[in-house]
């Protein structure tokens, strides 16, 4: 088994995808956007150099280049559109939400839109209010979009391959704070199907359902709590649409205690929806009230202690688990 950094697995996936399929174009108005502002961003230049006709740099026109990618997908290409900072997807909202998400349905199943939108969401440190959105909950309110939230090197590679192969518009929502985490990535690993949650850590006392970077933070919290004798099971849905609710409920039935950790704002966030579904399906299985660990309902402040004050921190996760198992 080989170990890779997250960013290496992600780059390897994109390279393999572009090399294998000439219908894939990578479209981004900033050439190094795939790895955000991380120091590894320069590594992307090698892909741009090797596939000059397939790495496309449009003007700073998110609305138009997302629409362009959607139109190209309608005609059989499989574009990967990089919006880089997830907040920028708001500039393209009419195309993503009102054109791409609706096209297959409105046409009565005639027109497929196999496009991937790549976004980097969440609190990245100093992003302030306009560069820190986690729009997955907003997008989950728009039927027709597949929503992917990888959290490990193996997942980012396997899920990106599935995203590009999907015949539906797929929002691939990544997190820059994952880029340096390391993990096993088998050579020639298969694509990871959508709708298969992954138990990232087994435990018997409490179920933590976490997404994206919050999976890693929850694993750190679980490690700490293990030293106190609390066995935390960490369930990572990996895709919100489609959602593997069975795996989540199997864990809930086993532990009877649930904490949901997600970086969206509290109100109508991903955690809110997951909690609602768990309560609807398994109220009688719960031994304690469910807790949410989420971003507070304020715009994201710039200053470090202020940003930390509204973040779903490891401390908050530990506190929520303590309150649940008490």
């Amino acid at each position, binding site marked *: 088994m080989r170990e890779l950094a997250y960013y290496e697995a992600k780059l390897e996936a994109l390279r393999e995808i572009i090399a294998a399929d000439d219908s894939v174009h990578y479209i981004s108005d900033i050439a190094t956007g795939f790895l955000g502002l991380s120091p590894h961003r320069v590594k992307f230049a090698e892909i741009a150099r090797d596939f000059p006709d397939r790495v496309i740099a449009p003007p700073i*026109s998110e*609305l138009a280049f997302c*629409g362009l990618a959607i139109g190209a997908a*309608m*005609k*059989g290409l499989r574009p990967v559109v990089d919006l880089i900072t997830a907040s920028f997807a708001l500039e393209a909202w009419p195309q993503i939400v009102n054109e791409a998400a609706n096209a297959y349905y409105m*046409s009565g*199943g005639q027109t*497929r839109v196999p496009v991937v939108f790549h976004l980097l969401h969440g609190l990245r440190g100093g992003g302030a209010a306009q560069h820190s959105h986690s729009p997955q909950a907003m997008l989950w309110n728009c039927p027709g979009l597949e929503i992917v939230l990888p959290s490990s090197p193996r997942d980012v590679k396997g899920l990106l391959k599935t995203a590009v192969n999907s015949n539906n518009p797929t929002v691939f929502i990544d997190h820059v704070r994952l880029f340096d985490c390391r993990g096993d990535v088998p050579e020639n690993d298969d694509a990871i199907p959508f709708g298969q949650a992954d138990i990232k850590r087994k435990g018997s006392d409490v179920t933590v359902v976490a997404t994206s970077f919050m999976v890693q933070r929850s694993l750190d919290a679980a490690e700490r709590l293990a030293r106190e004798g609390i066995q935390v099971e960490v369930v990572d849905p990996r895709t919100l649409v489609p959602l593997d609710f069975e795996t989540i409920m199997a864990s809930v039935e086993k532990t009877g205690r649930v904490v949901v950790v997600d970086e969206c704002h509290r109100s109508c966030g991903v955690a809110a929806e997951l909690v609602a579904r768990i309560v609807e399906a398994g109220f009688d299985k719960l031994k304690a009230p469910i807790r949410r660990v989420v971003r507070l309902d304020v715009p994201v402040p710039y200053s470090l202690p202020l940003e930390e004050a509204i973040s779903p921190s490891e401390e908050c996760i530990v506190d929520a688990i303590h309150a649940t198992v008490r």
Partner: protein
Amino acid sequence: MLVIRHFEERLISLHDQGHTRGHYHVYIGQEATGVPAISCLAPGDSLFSTHRNHGHLLARGAEPARLYAEILGRSDGYNRGKGGTLHTAVSALGFHHTSAIVGGIIPLATGVAFAAKARKTGELAVCLFGDGALEEGAAPEALNIASLWKLPVLFLCENNGKYGADRRVAAAQSPNMAAYPLTDLPKAYKIPAVQVDGTDAGEVYSAASDAVEKIRRGQGPQFIETQTVRWPGNEENWPVAPVATRVSLAWDASPVPEKQREWYRSCDPVLIFARELVERGVATKEALVALEDDVLKDIDGAVRFALASPYPEPEEALRDVFAAEGRP
């Protein structure tokens, strides 16, 4: 053009009888824009239309019966009742997606052109939109990209924003656009752009065939503004036909109420074309009347088909949210 005119007029009756839901938009007065322009296209070309799409679809060969069925929300509609008047798509005819969001199709058509160029198919995309679409930010963003990358796309702006039968009034500036004429906007992005009289089928055909040829030769996007005078039936919130059109109005407009008569006399593209055909000896008045009788019979049949088509089962609402896996 007669099929479109009678299709739309009958749709207004169907609406007034309570057979349709919600708002709808008719193409009356713009027939000489869509019909000649679309006749210049090849089978593999793609077309994007708006909320005012019925005429474009019919011009490309859509069946009136299935189009009515879609507009009436029936199961035999092209989209099984899930698109309706605003979103009828007929992929086999190149209409992959019809958007009722003003300006929404301009980036999409540009994207289809991107795919055609990437794959070197020789196909092109046509984007059919109204003058209002140029007020949306999507328009300049997409025009810029289409021009930068020399994409094979024809932007056909159907300017129906002009009220009144007076041609000089018709040429007046849109109250919502600082850019005047509208072709200044594409020209700023170095896209060749022409204005033509949208009630003159021959003029539209010349401009469209010239533009299509340039696009196929790899000269990049082209822009045509067709100017039509807004049909007086569109002056209310809902279409109201002042008169049931008959081709005989081309020679005697007296059946039209006086208030709207001037439009039928001097601005109606269907009647203008009918007069032209007769004056040039291409058809006789009698032949046109006989043709119209056939069209009216076909429309009758199409309406019967649509009204007889069942509504979709409720389960249909849950289908087609996602496409299945696997490469097509």
